[in-house]
Structure formats: C-alpha cells, structure tokens
C-alpha cells in the first residue's frame, strides 16, 4: 500500500490540472498482475459510487451505480484506483483544452497542451504519478497525448477490450486504450484488460495471449511499411530526422523497411470521414444526457424545456457546435451525401490498409508533425495536407479497428514526440514486439517529466 499512498500524495499535488477526482485508496486484497499498483482512469470510465463526469458539466453530479468492465478487471488483478483524470468534454476533442475543469498542462512544459482527449491520463503517467492509466481512443485520443507526453499509448484491436461502462462517444470508433511508460508494462496491461465480455456484443471471443511473456524485440526479417503520404505531408525536419534515425536502427536490427503510398485524395478524406462519423454517432449516443434520470437538471416550463435547458447549459460550446454537424450529417436529406458517404469512404480506406498489412507486419509513421502545441498556439490550416494527413493519420486505427500504439521517438525543445505503428487485427503480439524493438533503438523508456 505504500506505493499507492505515495502515488495518491503525488496525485494530490498534481500541477498539470490532470486529476478531476481523487479517490481515497482502498486496500485491494486480490493478488494479481496489478497487485499494489495505483491506477488512474479517464473520467469517462464508470466507477461505482465515484463521480464520473466525462469532463462535462451535465454530468457534474453523476455517481455511477456500476463499475465498467475494465474497472472490474483492474480490481480483480489487484489494482487500486486512486483518481479520475481530466479529458476533453465527452472525449470530443484532441487538445484537452475542452474540459470544463480547464486545460490539462503538458508535464514537460506547462505552456504546452497535453493533447487529448485522454490528456489527464497521459499527464498523470508522464509526470510519474502512476505507471498505468486508462484512456479511450476514438480518433487518436490515447496515441496523440502519449506522443506529446513521452509515454507509450496503446489502442488495441476493436473488440479486444470491453467498452461496457465507458461513456460512449462514437461507438463504431470507440476503443478503450491505456498509457504506460514502457512496452513491457503495455503488454502486461492488455492481459489484464482484454477478453470477451457478454455485456458488449462487439467484444471478441478470441483468446487473450500472455503478451508480456511472448515479448521479443527480434525484428529480423519483419516487413515494415513506411507511411509515405504522412512523410510527404510533414514539414518538421527534426521530426523527419528522428524518424529516419529510428528507421536506420530498425534496419540495422534486420527489419525490411519499404515505403508505401496510398491514394493521396483518399488520405485527404481521413479527417472529414472521421469528423462526420464521430459527430453523427455522438449526437445519437449523447441523447441520453437529458438531465431527467441523472446529471444536472435545469428548470423549465415543461419536460421539453427542462431537457433543452439542461442540454444547453450542460454542454460546452464546442460540443454543441459539433452536435450541429452531427445533426446535419444524419438529416434525411443529407445522410446520403454526408454520413453514408463517409461510411463508404471508410470502407475504401479500410480495404487499402488491409491490403497493405497483408504484405507488411506494420505500418509506421511519426505520430504528428510537431511536439505538443502551445496552449495558445497558432491555428493550423484545416485544409492542408499537414492537418488532413500528418496530424490525423492515426484515425486509420479506429476506422479499421486494427491495433495501434505510439512509442516515444525523440525530443525537440525538451519536449517529446512519438512514433506510431499499426498492425493486423488481433496481432497485438507482433505490435508489442515491434514496439519493444523501437524502444530499444531509441533507448527512450520509463521517461518521467521533471516536474518542478
């Protein structure tokens, strides 16, 4: 318990605004893979009797009456939950600036963002509060903040970890993911979290391997596809140099590195396809937030007005604006050219990536163009390839459901940046192995931001 109390004290003194709710640690007598290990959860993971807000005002007073399946699994393996972490409101964002408790600061540089939407969980691991934190990943919401925070971020195969009890954002893209400070821990955590759950019909029956025991950094003969469209859209030389250094080291280890290009017009749709599918599904998923059965209820003349007032005051401006896009995309007269069009292109993208991964063991690219942006950064051109492709390529993991992870790659201005790999469905074993080879190549492992 000493380790847990220590972590709890650190969490209390968190300087990144990462923790939304501290949870008084309770001794867990279960012996298992997480015995004595303090855990922090993103605040969209339901915890029985513990406030769960998803960083939205409308859930400010919400205390779930049940544990999410992942919480049950963590407890069963001896883990102790010590806090709930900040996130972009309802996981709809990539900056963690849109939490109603305020932005999460990057532990490497407080002037920078942590990334989102699982920014609180990422900051908690990077600043050394805990070694394990749970997040969720709908676009790149675990892998992007992992890159900005210098840690490992894993989004396993869709259906590998039960989504039961995780506040939904976009059900066909939502994944439970998590953060660790090294690949070994990452492989162990999947053993804890993965497995069939009859409460989630999309959960897989495939057996869960002992990933941590199978771990092996030998990449000799492994075929690695460099995601050329991403490289071509990058303009940060430091990022490119770090990436090329890494590729050279992997080559030295015997990996076969080849460039792969997809149709660039298709790649330019990555962001809009994501944006449309995510917002459309979100409007429907979040229709339960009406203040009638749980959550903050505002007054009104009649039921309709109660709901309208609760939702107007309960959701931040950004959320309501994105809901309008979702409403637009699902509208009968627009659905064909917006929502269904996006779903059709999703299929085309998935087919391309699937073909690629039939030939290669993984697809690799820098997680983003730059290190974490400043809190008040310059706005990026949302029609540029840098934005549409380089900053958003990791949504491919959500479209395909394929396992994808981000591992630290290097530094710029004292801030970390990561590299992302994506593998075949349910091929997490291979993903961890390549991840370990990367970790050995860079030597970047168990990083902790020097918090002053």
């Amino acid at each position, binding site marked *: 318990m000493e380790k847990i109390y220590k972590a709890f004290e650190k969490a209390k003194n968190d300087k990144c605004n990462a923790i939304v709710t501290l949870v008084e640690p309770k001794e867990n007598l279960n012996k298992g893979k997480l015995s004595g290990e303090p855990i922090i959860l993103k605040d969209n993971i339901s915890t029985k009797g513990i406030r769960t807000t998803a960083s939205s005002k409308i859930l400010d*007073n919400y*205390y779930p*009456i049940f544990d999410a399946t992942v919480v049950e699994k963590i407890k069963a393996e001896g883990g102790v939950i010590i806090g709930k972490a900040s996130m972009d409101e309802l996981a709809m964002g990539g900056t963690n600036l849109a939490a109603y408790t305020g932005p999460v600061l990057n532990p490497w540089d407080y002037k920078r963002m942590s990334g989102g939407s699982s920014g609180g969980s990422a900051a908690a691991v990077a600043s050394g509060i805990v070694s394990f934190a749970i997040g969720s990943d709908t676009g790149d919401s675990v892998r992007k903040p992992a890159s900005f925070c210098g840690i490992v971020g894993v989004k396993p195969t*869709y*259906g590998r970890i039960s989504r039961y009890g995780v506040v939904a954002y976009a059900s*066909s*893209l939502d994944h439970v993911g998590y953060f660790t400070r090294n690949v070994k821990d990452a492989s162990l955590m999947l053993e804890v979290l993965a497995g069939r759950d*009859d409460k989630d019909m*999309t959960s897989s029956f495939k057996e869960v391997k002992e990933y941590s025991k199978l771990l092996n950094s030998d990449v000799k003969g492994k075929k690695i596809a460099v995601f050329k469209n991403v490289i071509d859209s990058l303009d940060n030389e430091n990022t490119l140099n770090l990436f090329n250094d890494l590729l050279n080291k992997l080559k030295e280890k015997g990996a076969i590195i080849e460039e792969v290009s997809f149709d660039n*017009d*298709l790649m330019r*749709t990555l962001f*809009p*396809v994501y944006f449309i599918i995510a917002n459309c599904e979100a409007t429907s998923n979040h*229709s339960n937030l*009406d*203040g*009638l*059965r*749980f*959550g*903050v*209820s505002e*007054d*009104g*003349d*009649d*039921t*309709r007005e*109660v*709901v*309208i007032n609760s*939702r*107007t005051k309960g*959701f931040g*401006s950004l959320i*309501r*604006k994105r*809901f*309008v*896009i979702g*409403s637009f995309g699902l*509208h009968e007269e627009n659905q064909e*050219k917006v929502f269904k*069009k*996006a*779903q*059709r*292109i*999703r*299929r*085309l993208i*998935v087919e391309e990536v699937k073909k690629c991964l039939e030939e290669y063991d993984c697809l690799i690219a820098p997680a983003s163009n730059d290190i974490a942006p400043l809190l008040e950064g310059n706005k990026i051109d*949302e*029609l540029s390839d840098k934005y*549409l492709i380089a900053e958003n390529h990791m949504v491919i993991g959500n*479209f*395909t*459901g394929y396992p994808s992870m981000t591992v630290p790659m290097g530094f710029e201005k004292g801030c970390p940046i990561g590299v992302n790999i994506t593998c075949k*469905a349910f091929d997490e074993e291979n993903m961890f192995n390549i991840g370990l080879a990367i970790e050995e190549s860079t030597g970047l492992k168990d990083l902790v931001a020097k918090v002053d």
Partner: protein
Amino acid sequence: MIEKEYIKELAHELMFDLSEEEVVEIQKEYETFSKQLELLEKIDTKDVKPMPYPFENETNYLREDVVTHVITQEDALRNASYSKEGHFVVHKVVK
C-alpha cells in the same frame, strides 16, 4: 453558406439552444467543413457499401432469457434530481 435558421433548427432537433455568436461561429466553421465535404465528393464510392462497424464478421451470440441483473429502486433513483413515490419526476416550473 448555411442559413442561421437552419442551424438553429438542427440544434433544436437535438434539444439545445445556441447563442447568436455560436451560430455565427458555426457558419464560419461550416465554410471549412463544406470544403472538406468536397474532398469526399472527389472519391468514387459507386457500388461501395457503407461500413457501419469496423469488423463485419457476423456473431452467433444471443443473450439467454435469464434475469442477470436488476438494481434497487433506490439505486435507480439515486442520480435523479427529482423523485417521488418511486418515480422519476419531471418538475415543471410555472413562471
């Protein structure tokens, strides 16, 4: 250009209001969005079916008709702002 009235209607269908500034912001953001929509139009999706799930493998699983989980009335109402005689209450305020 997307009409202000249409934006408000879209919001009302989802049961919330927007401020005038928010409506103007959406109009502006819609300009970018509509250009992104043009990117979609460039892609030929003839004969391509929409993909609603990442994996389309069929399942055989159906839940057996056995009571697995029921909560108490107290737990059901625990998070409600208003309740009365075991019911959720929507309280109307007469101005």
